């Protein structure tokens, strides 16, 4: 009976690991899609502004929108890291998670400040990043 209980526990843990691994893959794919779409849209808009509109003042707004995609993609990557560390985290994984959190926080802070500065200089009417 004790052996059956141990086998059941290991099967349950294996299923949990597989479920979490699948979720991590889904969330990471979401992050990659957001980041790639953000880069592609940003590049297309940079090219449009540079080649068609020829107005250098609009570059700042495009750059800040690209920054929003960056922060959103990083949020998804952070969620994937949190999920990964939910099952038997190692000290190395926790350290990497802390580093990604620090990068995300710094990027978010800098982008928020840049948006406020751009708004005051260019009069771009969008709210700051939270």
């Amino acid at each position: 009976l004790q052996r059956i209980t141990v086998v059941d526990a290991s099967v349950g843990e294996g299923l949990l690991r597989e479920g979490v691994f699948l979720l991590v893959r889904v969330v990471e794919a979401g992050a990659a899609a957001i980041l790639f779409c953000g880069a592609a849209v940003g590049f297309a808009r940079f090219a449009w502004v540079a080649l068609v509109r020829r107005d250098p003042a609009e570059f700042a707004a495009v750059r800040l929108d690209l920054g929003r995609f960056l922060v959103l993609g990083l949020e998804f990557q952070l969620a994937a890291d949190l999920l990964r560390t939910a099952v038997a985290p190692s000290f190395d994984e926790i350290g990497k998670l802390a580093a990604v959190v620090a990068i995300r926080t710094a990027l978010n802070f800098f982008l928020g400040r840049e948006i406020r500065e751009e708004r005051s200089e260019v009069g771009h009417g969008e709210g700051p990043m939270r």
Partner: protein
Amino acid sequence: MNALTEAVLLVSAMGVLGGALVAFVARRVHTGLVTMLDLWTTASLLRLPDDASWSAIGTVAGLVALRKVVASVLVRRRRNG
């Protein structure tokens, strides 16, 4: 080469091309440099799930720091005219 590596290379190339285009039209090297660094930061973030090593995390942190420094110089220059 997997799809993610190809995407990283493509975004890096977009960074070089976009940066050059912006610098040429704006006639300011710094504006182009910030644009290039933004797209390179995106590329390095794309690479993270595939290669979550300390060196990859260090690359992202370095690019974010460099981007911040160049953006600060850009803002200061614009304020000074």
